[in-house]
């Protein structure tokens, strides 16, 4: 599904450049539930942006669904994003003057689906996330958790193969965070690959695979079985703290 080979990325800041990703090799298969962790500045958001074709990279190669993603025109990238990928953001990024239903329907609008049809589909997805009664509400009338669920519905409506979530719980309280993670887990159970960035251990612990970044390199990958160990380690760390 996703295959990164020695991906480098640096940002030019004035005269000197900041080397953010220093050779990332990564394989993510269809249906995985992956979290990317790391301290701030470790390059986790940059990595996610590259994976989501929101940003380009300098060196190496990135295959998405068997297709090389490199030097794509903005139009091609937009098309690929629209067909293959769904995004969930920390700050929800809903369009303020559109109601919940219209926000959810937006990706279909860009696919050229007619209004009646896309709004009907949007309502189905809102129903799935328990938000049907709020369909006509504007984003500023919704709580944080509700907003994130609208955003998730929006990311799902184009039936993507992968959901990218950048700190999806970053702006939410713990119980709402767990609700959102539950939703993401359900989505993953339906066979959609979910990749999220977080710096919260408890959130990361709910995924199947944790990729820990350090200084632009993958420091460790914690998988299925080890996860239990990680969880124990993490709770222990919590207790001692």
């Amino acid at each position: 599904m996703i295959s990164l080979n020695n991906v480098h990325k640096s940002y030019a800041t004035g005269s000197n450049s900041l080397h953010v990703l220093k050779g990332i090799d990564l394989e993510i298969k269809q249906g995985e539930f992956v979290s990317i962790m790391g301290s701030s500045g470790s390059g986790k958001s940059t990595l996610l942006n590259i994976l989501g074709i929101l940003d380009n990279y300098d060196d190496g190669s990135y295959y998405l669904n068997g297709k090389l993603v490199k030097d794509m025109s903005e139009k091609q990238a937009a098309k690929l994003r629209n067909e293959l990928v769904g995004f969930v953001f920390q700050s929800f990024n809903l369009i303020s003057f559109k109601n919940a239903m219209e926000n959810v329907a937006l990706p279909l609008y860009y696919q050229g689906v007619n209004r009646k049809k896309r709004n009907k589909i949007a309502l189905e997805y809102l129903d799935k996330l328990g938000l049907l009664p709020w369909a006509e509400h504007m984003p500023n009338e919704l709580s944080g958790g509700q907003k994130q669920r609208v955003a998730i519905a929006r990311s799902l409506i184009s039936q993507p193969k992968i959901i990218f979530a950048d700190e999806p719980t970053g702006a939410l309280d713990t119980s709402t965070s767990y609700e959102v993670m539950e939703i993401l887990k359900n989505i993953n159970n339906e066979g959609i690959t979910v990749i999220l960035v977080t710096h919260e251990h408890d959130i990361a612990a709910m995924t199947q695979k944790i990729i820990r970044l350090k200084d632009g390199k993958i420091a460790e990958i914690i998988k299925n079985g080890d996860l239990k160990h990680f969880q124990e380690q993490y709770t222990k760390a919590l207790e001692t703290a």
Partner: protein
Amino acid sequence: MEGKGGGFTMFDLDLWKEILSALKKNRMRSFMTAFGVFWGIFMLIIMSGAGKALENGVMDGIKAFASNSAFFWTEPTSKPYEGFQRGRRWNYKNTDIEYIKANVNDIEYLAPKLFGSNSNSGDNTIRGKKTGAFNISGDYPEFFEIDSWTVLKGRMLNQIDILQKRKVCIIGERVVEVMFDKNEDPIGEYLKINGVYYQVVGVVHPETRVNFNGNRKEENIMIPFTTMQQTYNYGDVVHFFSITSTPGVPVSKVEMRLKELLKERHHIAPDDVQAIGSFNIEVEWIKYMGLFNGIQILTWIVGTGTLFAGIIGVSNIMLVIIKERTQEIGIQRAIGATPGKVIMHIVAESVFLTVIAGYIGLALGVGILELLNMALDSGGDEIFFRRPEVSFKMAVSALTVLVFAGIGAGLIPARRAVKIKTIDALRDEGI
């Protein structure tokens, strides 16, 4: 635009919703921006309409004159010549008529004229208990080939009237109003003009506004030239000549030749420019056309200048709007909006603002011209400001210019909007 599926259409509800909400978000700013365009178009329409009205007013006054006509009267001489002192008053003579016809080529019509008293010099016409002051002139039928009149009732003067020196007259509408009761037919009735009775044979309406004797042409009474000359003892005096040149010959040329000849015959210095008064429609026409073309050009320069300033305003505001909405545009692009679609939205918004504002300016401008037109219509015939109007062609071209201006005004900010990388746009925290 983007091919696949529905794509961009004018009836895309989401597009209009987006545009309206963006404009509503900052009403004052939208209004001020729109006002620039509105004012540009409004001024263009008003100025152009006013220019046209002035043109109509002046042109209506002269356009029914034969375009190849010229007119001659006499003035006191300004130079001593052949033993005559300067300041001598003189007149054309009957003998001039035949002489001109024999010696000046390229004259199509020659119409001598005599002026009697006019409406400014007190009552001169009586019928029963009614009296009136009118402009009396003695004319040849040829005059009506040069200065157009419409016969409302009866007939024009003709050659037999001239030959038989008939005591007949044709009268303007105002004469009918004053001298006859309502529903009374003036044809066949008699008017006593300066003591002599004339039978009314025609009621006529002037097509031009310039009168050579008195003010309003509706107050004219015209009798046969020969009748007038004999009845009132004018001898062989002629006051005035009207001519047209034969088609294809510039009347200015004939005018010059004629003046030379008349000076020679009446002992006037060849270089006396004052003794013969004249004007020719050809020259007047060219003068007016130049004037009105100038006005139209000025109107367009000022109007389009104002409009252009308005459009720059729109472009500027669009830039600000785009800047404010950077993140929103980023979101849209993240979830699949292509750059083409983003550009299309921004351009549509700009065109919408420009066209709506322009249309209101256009409608209001035309509306005001229409009101002015109604006010002028009730003001009578004398006003030299008539039918303010803008052509349909101009309205359409102004709107077309607006659409393209809107596209232009939107395109620059739109291209800037998609130049920003999606990820940077997403990160943008606004200004």
